[in-house]
């Protein structure tokens, strides 16, 4: 038995690094020096980033005007759903103290509107919106069919509750001269929405394509009348409609309403001066104790004027630094009397 030749050792395990668990490895190591170094650099980096972000956020300008209560009579009118066909307009003057340079974006912002409710988010038909089958309304409960069993287009709760105020911004150069600020209603959507997810059945005659369907109950006009002047902004391709169809994550959200057309007077942006918003007030928010406002904003490389990210960086950096100082203190005090296990 003792003289077993090598080739007979049929069951000798393979002597490879993997099988013998001797794969080369390197180790994460939490020595005080390394950790301190990492913490210091992280802290410095975060503080710098924070300051940069705060500075850039402050370089943007933003004006928000909450018009829920300013247009009190309109709000009251809309409390009652039976007044849906009565028009109500409202003008809100405001003064722009400094000029808004560069691209200016106009948003409407809703407070307390839950676009993220489970049954609300689901209530849409992507197959319908892509233009393949306008009568596909399976997923749209409870806005699938009208009472006389004709399919609703666009179906679903999202489409039905589309924001339908019109907001027009005017520049009051002096007390008598008022010019309308040119706003672009194109390029408001994600590229994929406009060119992939939302398609009209065919471009020739929309009304024909949508024959046999009905408009959502809350809508004053059918889908093919959203923008009669511009066929590329009509039907499912309407930018306002597409923007609305992207369900927001939080009950407070803003959606892009228009972009400043930088021509003539507004080539550099919005000059300082007196402005007014002329609003056709259709969208009822007081019924669910919500609020709505209109926002004008410029943007920078990292977005709008919210300071949160900058502050978060700064605070994280500061905490990291504090932690590293604390650790350094501990390290120095303990360094001399550091107990070794083997001395015990």
């Amino acid at each position, binding site marked *: 038995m003792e003289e077993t030749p090598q080739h007979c050792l049929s069951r000798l395990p393979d002597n490879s690094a993997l099988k013998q668990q001797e794969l080369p490895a390197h180790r994460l190591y939490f020595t005080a020096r390394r950790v301190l170094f990492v913490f210091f650099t992280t802290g410095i980096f975060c503080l710098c980033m924070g300051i940069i972000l705060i500075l850039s956020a402050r370089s943007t300008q933003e004006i928000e005007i909450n018009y829920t209560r300013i247009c009190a009579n309109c709000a009251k009118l809309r409390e009652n759903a039976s007044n849906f066909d009565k028009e109500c307009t409202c003008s809100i003057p405001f003064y722009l103290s400094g000029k808004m340079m560069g691209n200016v974006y106009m948003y409407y912002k809703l407070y307390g509107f839950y676009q993220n409710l489970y049954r609300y988010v689901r209530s849409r038909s992507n197959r319908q919106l892509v233009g393949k089958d306008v009568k596909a309304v399976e997923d749209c409960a409870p806005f699938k069919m009208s009472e006389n069993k004709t399919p609703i287009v666009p179906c679903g709760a999202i489409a039905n509750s589309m924001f339908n105020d019109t907001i027009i911004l005017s520049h009051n150069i002096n007390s008598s001269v008022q010019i309308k600020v040119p706003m672009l209603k194109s390029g408001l959507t994600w590229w994929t929405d406009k060119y992939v997810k939302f398609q009209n059945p065919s471009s020739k005659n929309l009304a024909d394509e949508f024959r046999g369907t009905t408009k959502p109950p809350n809508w004053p006009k059918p889908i093919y009348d959203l923008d009669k002047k511009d066929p590329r902004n009509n039907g499912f391709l309407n930018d306002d409609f597409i923007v609305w169809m992207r369900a927001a994550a939080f009950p407070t959200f803003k959606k892009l309403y228009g972009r400043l057309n930088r021509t003539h007077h507004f080539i550099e942006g919005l000059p300082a001066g007196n402005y007014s918003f002329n609003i056709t007030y259709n969208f009822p928010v007081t019924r669910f104790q919500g609020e709505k406002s209109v926002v004008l904003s410029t943007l920078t490389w990292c977005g709008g004027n919210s300071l949160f990210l900058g502050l978060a960086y700064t605070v994280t950096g500061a905490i990291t630094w504090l932690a590293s100082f604390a650790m350094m203190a501990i390290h120095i005090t303990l360094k001399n009397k550091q107990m070794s296990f083997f*001395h015990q």
Partner: protein
Amino acid sequence: MSRATSVGDQLEAPARTIYLNQPHLNKFRDNQISTAKYSVLTFLPRFLYEQIRRAANAFFLFIALLQQIPDVSPTGRYTTLVPLIIILTIAGIKEIVEDFKRHKADNAVNKKKTIVLRNGVWHTIVWKEVAVGDIVKVVNGQYLPADVVLLSSSEPQAMCYVETANLDGETNLKIRQGLSHTADMQTREVLMKLSGTIECEGPNRHLYDFTGNLNLDGKSLVALGPDQILLRGTQLRNTQWVFGIVVYTGHDTKLMQNSTKAPLKRSNVEKVTNVQILVLFGILLVMALVSSAGALYWNRSHGEKNWYIKKMDTTSDNFGYNLLTFIILYNNLIPISLLVTLEVVKYTQALFINWDTDMYYIGNDTPAMARTSNLNEELGQVKYLFSDKTGTLTCNIMNFKKCSIAGVTYGHFPELAREPSSDDFCRMPPPCSDSCDFDDPRLLKNIEDRHPTAPCIQEFLTLLAVCHTVVPEKDGDNIIYQASSPDEAALVKGAKKLGFVFTARTPFSVIIEAVSNTCVRFRSPTSVKIVPVKWHVCCKVQATRAAITQHCTDLGNLLGKENDVALIIDGHTLKYALSFEVRRSFLDLALSCKAVICCRVSPLQKSEIVDVVKKRVKAITLAIGDGANDVGMIQTAHVGVGISGNEGMQATNNSDYAIAQFSYLEKLLLVHGAWSYNRVTKCILYCFYKNVVLYIIELWFAFVNGFSGQILFERWCIGLYNVIFTALPPFTLGIFERSCTQESMLRFPQLYKITQNGEGFNTKVFWGHCINALVHSLILFWFPMKALEHDTVLTSGHATDYLFVGNIVYTYVVVTVCLKAGLETTAWTKFSHLAVWGSMLTWLVFFGIYSTIWPTIPIAPDMRGQATMVLSSAHFWLGLFLVPTACLIEDVAWRAAKHTCKKTLLEEVQELETKSRVLGKAVLRDSNGKRLNERDRLIKRLGRKTPPTLFRGSSLQQGYAFSQEEHGAVSQEEVIRAYDTTKKKCRKK
């Protein structure tokens, strides 16, 4: 006490009658054996049943069924079913691989060849065709294909020698003898004419019992006993051939009756995990209830006013409906992949044990074998070790080395100066074959010099040569001693070397030749009469009982503290020590001792001791043994280890781990056990962590979406989280994690304490991880939420949606969770890199592809275009650094602080390793420039094996050693005493 080994717990099967040479009358089970779990047909139903019986799988099946109810599931219909199927498939593949091996092994056995007499002709057939009533011929060296009644053999008086190692682990030869009535049935013709019946008891598992009658036509009834039965699995030795009649076949044979499935052992960690799964399930229910209550409240306060959903159906108001929705929403709090991950991880760990070349014994070509992978981590927690002595500790290699006669000690150890090490026991089989190292001329000199103790010495040597059951066999001038136990052989050989040569045995005397190997040589054969001694117990009973009670009282003052003494107790005394009244005191005493040796104990007592200790101390016990008599304790202990190789298969077949040498236990425990524990617990904790992180976010989101059950992430992203995007890190943690190198694990056995005391996995650690996960999920949700809530994050001014937030959060979660795995990893191998970076990359690639498939493939319309927008947002990239950093910096700070305040032994050893690697050889100095003595000593040991003092003293709290009690089918002693080796045996070689 229910114990699998206790015999006689079966209902007796009806007795059977076997007709000789009338095969059509014998209708019994065939000789085919099958130890496999499944066949092709039964696989699917049985496998599914096995899987669904597990609580976690049943839970996920329940969730999958719930999802089929329309409108209840926020995550679609198949998001649980598909991962479940993936997971079951993996588990199924593992089962198939394992079962295939069993099928192969069965096949090999079933296809072995044997010779039977059929229709008057000897046929060579395969084992599975052997039937009850067949007359078989087995030749020397072959294994018996079934349980056979011995008729005749090539030896006189129908004697034959068998080795029953497969059954009871004993390698010595046993004698079986056919009835004298059948001894002359030696030819085919005689056998063909045989007619009559054999009546015998039904199949049972009693190895040493057999009762039956042979009723040959025209002859009187004769009784058959265990002496006449040759069991399946025994090997015919030193006998040219035997003829026999098959009485039990296949699963009716005693071998198969005894190889019942070992009791299913579950590891401590697994039990704790199950409890924690239950706790998590409770938390899940609470979360679902809270959310449903929230939904109820929200619907009351908002539902009427929100005109944009007012017309919705009423299901959203239904509490029960909402509850189901939320259970589905939060179900992944319980990690769906945990069970299968653990299974694969443990399977691989078991492979590592099998692959270990350090545990491969070149002597008999035996690698270590993990027969179960359930208990790997249990090996890291052993506190009490129960070892069989004979065979296990000694490898059955006995040398006569030293003796003490009348107070004088003879024999010396040159190596005594060295610490005795576990190496000494087994690692090196002694090269000398006469198994006698005794070399002390003083002994013989004292006889010759008429030293005052000379008569004692003579008496001693005479006794050595006389009191035993060894059978001498003359082989030319040499005498070969056939001994049933190696200690006897060693003693007799010792005596021989000292001039008292045992040469022959007759039934009533032994013959000793006293040869002095000094200058004066004389021979004087001495005949010593043997007076049979009967084993005098009865009268001692009361006395012993009184004595042990007395002793226990005396020893009472020793109780309750660590005694640096060993307790030795023999089987008889043990019987009383384990009696109800004194059991407690005895146990307390035993537990306070460093070691306890129980000698001459029965197998039942062995397992009883294990059981008592197991119940009393709630610590993990390990039993190691090599013979059939150890099976009981091997099965009773938490972990059973069998010594495989030369000692038969019984212990091995019932063990959880089989190693070839006792010394390999060191590596099995200190390296494989500790590592496995470390790995498994890290893997489990990490799985819980990552699930809590992701799915608690759904709860946070519920707070801002009116408890409507909306999910923040895309449904398939959630569904694949466990099975793809974060599937790899648990595997690398579970398979490749190494807290420190093998050498260090062996060199510093104190490290074993970490796992032994379960420091890596207990309720505290578990909740620590859960709370950590909770904090991480808070950061991971609220940071992006606050950053994205009011701000325009896209430089194009576009608005975002819920999935935009969801995908950002999801990406942060994947990155954080993968990096966390990296932090948990002590040894970054290439696989760790693959898992950490690969997982992140996989998600990003999936995200990119998944965002483009609608409407080409009609799924995930909401994902269309997400990747481009998310990746082009500066906020995303800024947060990608900030959020994981904010999460993990807390972990790092915590760990670094702990490390700075007080280094654990593990960290110290790790540091030592790194330093010794960096410096080549580590000479560590303290702040004064002095060498650190202890460290220095430790480093000096580099390359040397562990001193066992450390091993014994600090790691394993206690050892129990058992000394084996002989037993056998027929009293071996009696047979041997009847031997007369002076007569010539007519054996044809």
